């Protein structure tokens, strides 16, 4: 870092001058305040604590043009509203020590953020010089700040600089010197508050006149009272006679919106300054984001694009993943199961059965779908990383409003695409109990990752090349059902309460391979772990139930249970095996596949071929429809019980899912069988 030569000459502590010129450095954190402080004071600095506080106090000396300066680095703050010890220290220092000059260091690249503090500094009794730092960073980001315009708008000197490069430091010191000698025009334009509140401010000013302790300026104290500043309120409560305090308090109570009005004035002021002095050319990333968002967040086209993207994701997943899955099924599951049977030819039948049919046929069949899931996860992670998922959320929210749902219901439901459990827990953001209940009832209708996984597994097995279309249709069916149920319940439970929802959409950017890779790894590993624990155990239990008591599947306990329920299943075209598969999905959705794997001895011929050969398309479609709308998994039901605190609502939710899924399954089967 280069330091102007003039700063280094005569670096001696002040001796001749009676009192060094006191300069305070103010600014928010990370605007280069410390860089400037170190640059000016070099080794002549002292670091300690502010009296009675654990906040660091830095102070140093330097000379410039023969005059001595004492420089105090105030704690980094965004405002002076007594929100934190740092803010209190900064404003108390200026009020009590009355520095000759306050240098407000602002970041030219994020001028808005820095100007709030400047707005507050200008109302304090010390002249302010604005050090417009990080001009180089702003330029790199395509932001043009015009110092002369900002100076004219603020009414105080503005010095452009880049402290890290030592650029503009000389000019800053010259300005500080002239300001300390009152050799510069100084007419700050202060933020204004609304006329009605201006009158209130004047009334309070008159009420407290004569009672304000030194060194506080009356107008500033009146403003802080109006803002509800706790420190100043406490101080004036002690300083005013009780009856006068009551009068002031009554005025304040009658204008409890004044805090917003005062802050509002400052934001108007910042807005004016930025409009005047800052130009952000709409090029590059921001321009591209705006152009893309014109379509991606359009109320209608946004939904069309979302549906299109989802279709492409399914198409890619199946086109690339299905052949890989087939290979794994043939060579891994088939070969492994044959090997196990060969090795255990002398062992008891039940032992080779549990290994080959239970574990390899069940949990193994689930694992063969890993390539499909990896591609699916990669596609989703890609969309997330380039910034599209936030847009998907945004257009879906618009859709929710269209069907009468409210912003607050949306986010929990959106979480449901990952897993229904956080969706149910996420309803805590909704205050109204009725709205919350409604959202809890709707959440299980959102197709979660596990349900999507089952669709991703079974659609190609049944439908071959038409799988992407079927999967896409099933997601639309889920959302359509959710919309219809939402509208129906909304008419009865919600009564037109409005709620706002604000989102900050990230800029689109190039995907990062590492981020996507990490996300795919985490999700895939979680899936493998689940296959190795819950699904493995359920596979073994299902195998045992399908083996006992006599070793024959058709007369097993599981078959007996399945056949008991078969009359219901038959309405949807389902035989006892599909009915049982559906039931086992209550433990975890992926168990449907594991169960079918066990029941069809999938390790021998491959589950996909067996399923396709066994069931007509109408049955297959009805099964997938029921599967996607069926009772959520046990973890979700437990979450519903926990969050509603009521068994009645939990049972109602299960009943609702059961009713909707069975009805949809029957209708699908009856129509599909006739086509």
């Amino acid at each position: 870092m280069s330091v102007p030569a003039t700063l280094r000459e005569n670096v001696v502590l002040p001796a001749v001058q009676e009192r060094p010129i006191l300069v305070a450095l103010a600014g928010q954190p990370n605007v280069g305040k410390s860089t400037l402080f170190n640059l000016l004071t070099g080794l002549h600095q002292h670091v300690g604590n502010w009296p009675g506080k654990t906040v660091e106090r830095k102070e140093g000396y330097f000379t410039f043009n023969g005059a001595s300066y004492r420089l105090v680095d105030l704690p980094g703050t965004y405002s002076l509203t007594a929100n934190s010890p740092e803010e209190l220290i900064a404003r108390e220092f200026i009020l009590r020590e009355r520095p000759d000059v306050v240098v407000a260091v602002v970041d030219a690249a994020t001028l808005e953020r820095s100007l709030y503090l400047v707005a507050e500094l200008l109302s304090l009794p010390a002249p302010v010089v604005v050090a417009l730092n990080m001009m180089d960073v702003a330029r790199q980001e395509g932001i043009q700040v015009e110092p002369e315009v900002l100076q004219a708008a603020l009414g105080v000197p503005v010095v452009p600089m880049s402290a890290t490069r030592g650029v503009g430091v000389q000019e800053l010191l010259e300005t500080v010197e002239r300001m300390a000698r009152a050799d510069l025009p100084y007419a700050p334009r202060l933020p204004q508050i609304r006329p009605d509140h201006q009158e209130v401010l004047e009334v309070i000013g008159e009420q407290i006149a004569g009672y304000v302790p030194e060194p506080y300026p009356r107008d500033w104290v009146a403003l802080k009272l109006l803002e509800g500043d706790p420190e100043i309120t406490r101080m004036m409560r002690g300083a005013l006679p009780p009856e006068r305090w009551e009068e002031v308090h009554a005025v304040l109570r009658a204008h409890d919106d004044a805090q917003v009005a005062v802050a509002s004035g400052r934001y108007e002021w910042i807005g004016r300054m930025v409009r005047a002095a800052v130009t952000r050319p709409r090029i590059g990333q921001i321009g591209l984001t705006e152009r893309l968002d014109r379509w991606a967040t359009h109320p209608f086209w946004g939904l069309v694009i979302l549906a299109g993207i989802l279709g492409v994701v399914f198409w890619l997943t199946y086109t690339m993943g299905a052949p890989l899955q087939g290979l794994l099924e043939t060579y891994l599951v088939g070969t492994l199961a044959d090997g196990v049977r060969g090795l255990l030819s002398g062992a008891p039948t039940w032992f080779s059965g549990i290994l080959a049919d239970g574990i390899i046929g069940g949990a193994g069949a689930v694992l063969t779908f890993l390539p499909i899931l990896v591609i699916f996860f990669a596609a989703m992670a890609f969309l997330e990383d380039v910034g599209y998922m936030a847009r998907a959320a945004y257009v879906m929210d618009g859709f929710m409003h269209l069907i009468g749902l409210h912003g607050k219901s949306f986010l929990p439901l959106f979480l449901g695409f990952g897993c229904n459990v956080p969706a149910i827990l996420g309803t805590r953001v909704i205050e109204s109990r009725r709205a919350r209940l409604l959202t809890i009832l709707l959440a299980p209708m959102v197709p979660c990752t596990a349900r999507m996984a089952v669709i991703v597994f079974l659609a190609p097995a049944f439908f071959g090349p038409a799988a992407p279309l079927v999967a896409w249709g099933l997601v639309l069916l889920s959302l359509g059902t959710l919309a219809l149920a939402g509208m129906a319940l909304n008419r009865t439970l919600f009564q037109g309460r409005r709620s706002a929802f604000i989102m900050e959409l990230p800029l689109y950017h190039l995907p990062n391979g590492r981020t996507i890779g990490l996300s795919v790894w985490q999700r895939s590993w979680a899936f493998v772990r689940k296959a190795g624990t819950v699904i493995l155990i359920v596979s073994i239990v299902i195998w045992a139930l399908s083996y006992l008591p006599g070793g024959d599947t058709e007369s097993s306990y599981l078959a007996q249970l399945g056949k008991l329920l078969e009359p219901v299943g038959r309405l949807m075209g389902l035989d006892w095996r599909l009915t049982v598969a559906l039931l086992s999905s209550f433990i975890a959705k992926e168990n449907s596949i594991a169960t079918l794997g066990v029941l069809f001895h999938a390790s021998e011929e491959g589950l996909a071929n067996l399923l396709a050969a066994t069931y007509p398309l109408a049955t297959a479609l009805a099964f997938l429809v029921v599967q996607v709308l069926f009772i959520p998994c046990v973890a979700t039901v437990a979450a519903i019980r926990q969050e509603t605190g009521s068994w009645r609502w939990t049972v109602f939710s299960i009943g609702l899912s059961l009713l909707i899924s069975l009805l949809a399954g029957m209708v699908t089967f009856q129509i599909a069988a006739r086509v």
Partner: protein
Amino acid sequence: MLDRLLEILKAGGTHRVSDLAHMLDTTPALVEMMLEDLSRAGYVKPVATCTEACASCSLAHSCISTQPGKAWTLSQ
């Protein structure tokens, strides 16, 4: 400006920060600052993102919907 933002939010609906900035004839950065300010004053509150909501979920790692962006909602 803060009071106008509050009026817009009280009327309900879904808003993007950039839309709000356009409506108030200002920059998104200033809208974000105002939202943070309103959040401190208790008028709006940040919506729990997935990372918070998923803390107790065993499937948190496999969650598709991580943070969809910063989001706020009206408190009352």
